[in-house]
Every structure is written in C-alpha cells, then in structure tokens.
C-alpha cells in the first residue's frame, strides 16, 4: 500500500534556485529516508531522519520532519543541472510488516534547467 506520497509529482527550476519537495505519510514511523534515482535505475540514499529529529542537513540538502502532520520536506539549495533526477521518500514504520522494509512513494521528478 502507498505510504509516502511526494508532492509535487514534477518540478522544473532554473539552475541556482532552491528546490523543495514534500512527502506525506500515513502511519507512525521509526525513520524517514530520501533517495535519488537517475535514469530509472538504482537509487542512491541521500539522508535519513529519525522520528525524534525535526531537521537534518547534509551538504546542500536540508530535510525536515513534522510527525504531528506526518510530513517531511527535502530542500536542495543552489540547485545544479546534475541534481536533475527523481526523488523518493521512504518510511520505515514503527510496527507491523512495515517495520521490516521501507515503503516508497511515487517520487518527484526534478528538472534543473542550466
């Protein structure tokens, strides 16, 4: 079943601008992760935020988590053409079957125009 849902489905920005992608989920989670996928092949793990964390940074990436709203956002600052990819959020639930594997959303397709 769909747990995380990204918003928007597609985003097109100019190089140098900031890109913000959002993710909403439905159940109680242990952690939330963001991944990037180029050209429909393997995913690359970007960042993990635990349920007791509210914000995390990694280079040009900033992730926030609001467990009361069951939502997360991924901000990419000073975007580059190389950031063009699909971005997925994935959640690991606190209990049940979803605590053993990540549940992925459908992704946001980001295009950064040079």
């Amino acid at each position: 079943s769909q747990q995380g849902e990204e918003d928007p489905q597609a985003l097109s920005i100019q190089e140098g601008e900031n890109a913000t992608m959002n993710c909403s989920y439905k159940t109680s989670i242990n952690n939330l992760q963001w991944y990037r996928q180029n050209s429909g092949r393997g995913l690359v793990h970007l960042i993990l935020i635990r349920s007791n964390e509210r914000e995390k940074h990694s280079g040009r990436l900033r992730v926030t988590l609001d467990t009361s709203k069951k939502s997360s956002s991924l901000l990419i600052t000073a975007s580059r053409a190389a950031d063009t990819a699909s971005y997925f959020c994935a959640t690991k639930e606190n209990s049940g079957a979803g605590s053993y594997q990540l549940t992925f959303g459908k992704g946001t397709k980001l295009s950064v125009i040079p």
Partner: protein
Amino acid sequence: GAGVSQSPSNKVTEKGKDVELRCDPISGHTALYWYRQSLGQGLEFLIYFQGNSAPDKSGLPSDRFSAERTGGSVSTLTIQRTQQEDSAVYLCASSLGGTISNYGYTFGSGTRLTVV
C-alpha cells in the same frame, strides 16, 4: 564487493519463459530486499531476507514469483511463466539491519526485464 551487484542488467524474454535475476549484496549486510519498479512508478516491495530467518514474502504478486538467498549472501529472484505485466526494473538492495533500525539501503543498478 564495494556495492550491490545485479545481473543481468537487461533481460528480454518471451512470454511464458522462466527468468532468473541475481543479486550480490554488500558483504556483511544481513538484510536483502527485492523491489520492482514499473515505468514511471514508485517502488513495489517484493520480498525481504534477514539473516537466517524465514523471508517475508508478503509482497510477491503471485506464486509465479519466488526468491532464495543462499548462505546468507547471494539472492536469486525467479519468475516462472513470465507475463507481459512482469516487465519492469527489478531492484535489489541490502542494508546492515532489517528490523527497526536506522540504516539506509544500498541499491544495485537493477535488472530491466522486458517480456515480449
């Protein structure tokens, strides 16, 4: 190896044939996962292996799909009597822990399966 290795990278097969997809996880990663991604879609969980425990097969779409993991390392996903709707990219991932744990996954590059 340094990363998760999947083979073949591309596979074209005729409808009704069986296929085997292989995944070599990162050495020392106890958890291994198979996902499927259809064109333009998110990832669909298929099966999960954790150490020597019985696998979680809850995501397998039909009994034509099966997977095994030998010696806690290499895994093979088998699709019998392939159908056109099986066409997708099959992604394998491994991680250090399976149950509630704060480890990210390392994905392979996937096998693109086309059933004609």
